[in-house]
């Protein structure tokens, strides 16, 4: 943890970057109490300030999440193109509701505001990658592909 923190200047300006870095490095993609404490100590800031920032932004999670995070766009352009039914398809395939993590720890299902992929909507983001022009078949094949590449790792 300290090695990770040392890359950043000891200023509150670094806080969002630090929280991103901690979360990206964590296998469960979340911000634990210990991590937030370490960030506060490193910055010489009150823990309350660090927690205040960490709980404001939707990309940060205080709860442990799965190895892969699926974010389906729920903004009006994607909804108009059938985004809402895709959420049901994802929820059924993964066996979780929005905000939940599958028991095997593989996936967390989330919704997101506009991903800026509206010309290819409906769109979703799996980890760092955006997939557009989604249909039921495409959603299921993307998930299957992620499962396959996990299995061969």
């Amino acid at each position, binding site marked *: 943890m300290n090695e990770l923190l040392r890359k950043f200047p000891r*200023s*509150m*300006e*670094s*806080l*969002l*970057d630090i*929280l*991103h870095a901690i979360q990206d490095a964590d296998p469960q993609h979340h911000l634990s109490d210990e991590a937030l404490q370490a960030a506060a100590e490193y910055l010489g800031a009150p823990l309350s*300030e660090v927690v*205040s*920032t960490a709980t*404001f*932004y*939707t*990309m*940060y999670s205080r709860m442990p999440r799965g190895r892969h995070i699926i*974010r389906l766009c*729920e*903004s*009006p*352009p994607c*909804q*108009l*193109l059938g985004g809402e039914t895709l959420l049901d398809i994802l929820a059924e395939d993964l066996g979780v509701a929005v905000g939940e993590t599958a028991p095997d720890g593989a996936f967390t299902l989330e919704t*997101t*505001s*506009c*991903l*800026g*992929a*509206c*010309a*290819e*909507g409906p769109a979703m*983001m799996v980890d*760092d990658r955006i997939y557009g022009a989604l249909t039921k078949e495409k959603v299921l094949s993307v998930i299957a592909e992620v499962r396959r590449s996990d299995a061969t790792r």
Partner: protein
Amino acid sequence: MQPGSRAPAKETRIVLENCGRIDPESLSEAVKAGAYKAVTQVVREKRPSAEITAEIKRSGLRGRGGAGFPTGVKWSFTAPGDVKYIVCNADEGEPGTFKDRLILEGDPHKLLEGMMLAGYAVGASKGYVYIRGEYSLSIRRIQKAIDDARAGGYLGDAVLGSSFAFDIEVKKGAGAYVCGEETSLIESIEGKRGYPRLKPPYPGSVGLWKKPTVVNNVETLANVPAIIARGADWFRGFGTASSPGTKVFQILGDVETPKAVEVEMGTPLRTLIEAFGGGIRAGKRFKAALLGGAAGAIVGPGALEMPMDFDGAKERGGVLGSGAILVLDEDASVVELLHGILRFFRHESCGQCVPCRVGASVLVTLSERIRSGAATADDLERLVEVARTMQATSLCPLGQSPILPIQTAVDSFREEFEARMAKPCGAGA
């Protein structure tokens, strides 16, 4: 409206001129395409900084983030001081908007040059690009462009060997629509919750770290190099008298060819939808369009001749906003569209001020009653009334915005709302 039945419409590209034509990760290709020409000339000739601001003022360039405030005037309001900042607002989050992403990913050096010229004009030596966290590729590309520009001598303590110092840093957001509001964005760079500040004071006098700060949108800054290189008169040759230049529009939804195009300001809405968007999908009829994103206006067929520039749109009950144009065909429901927008505002309300926090929630409750057929006759009026109260009392544009889609939707599609109120959900629009 048959797709392909008319000659392909022609774009007028200024900010997107190099997108798709150069390798965005190559400094040399960007330079060959004209990048850093304007700033090189300005620095070499030691042009007075006031001249740069004056040129931008004369050009009539207005903020492309949506508000349309004159950019040169904003720059001239920057308070005196030793330390000032240029902040590029790349927190693109307005639903249906991806114009800034195209510039960030397609021609990042153009944006960097625009920031350098802004820094030169107002006397700032540090710039920040605040990019929303979901834009992974944009973040990588702009960071590479900064590294390359630094190595190439364009950024640093002595820009091109001159006495002008300017450097740029990327700041990654973390998922908050409200951070597109300039003071929230500043708070976020400072490592805090993205709560908007009270204005005044404006960022031009008290901004980042309490220093004078210019906050400009990506598309705005990307116009600056061409204006300085070719002059204000050249720029005024495009668009309308009160909105010179071009605008990037995103034509989406029920159209044949959803896409982004850069055209002259004042291009009629009909041309954008029919000539560029390919017309309504599957031969259907046009019903409505949401202009400018969630904080936008919902207009009907009567608005198709609307000239799409800041004043032309406003005069006819529309709005330019971010340039997003979400098209609905005859089968789509305005009630459902508005409900989606109101859910968005409820989710994105930051919770700092009471009118927005409570109001955004009440709006969804009322809208839910309307769409499920459980509303009483007064509920539609209450929807408007609550939004109007939010407009009058909220701290920032987020809470002030829902009135716009609500009022325009109710004005143009009252019958659909009333029909829906008398029927259960799913019984037709």
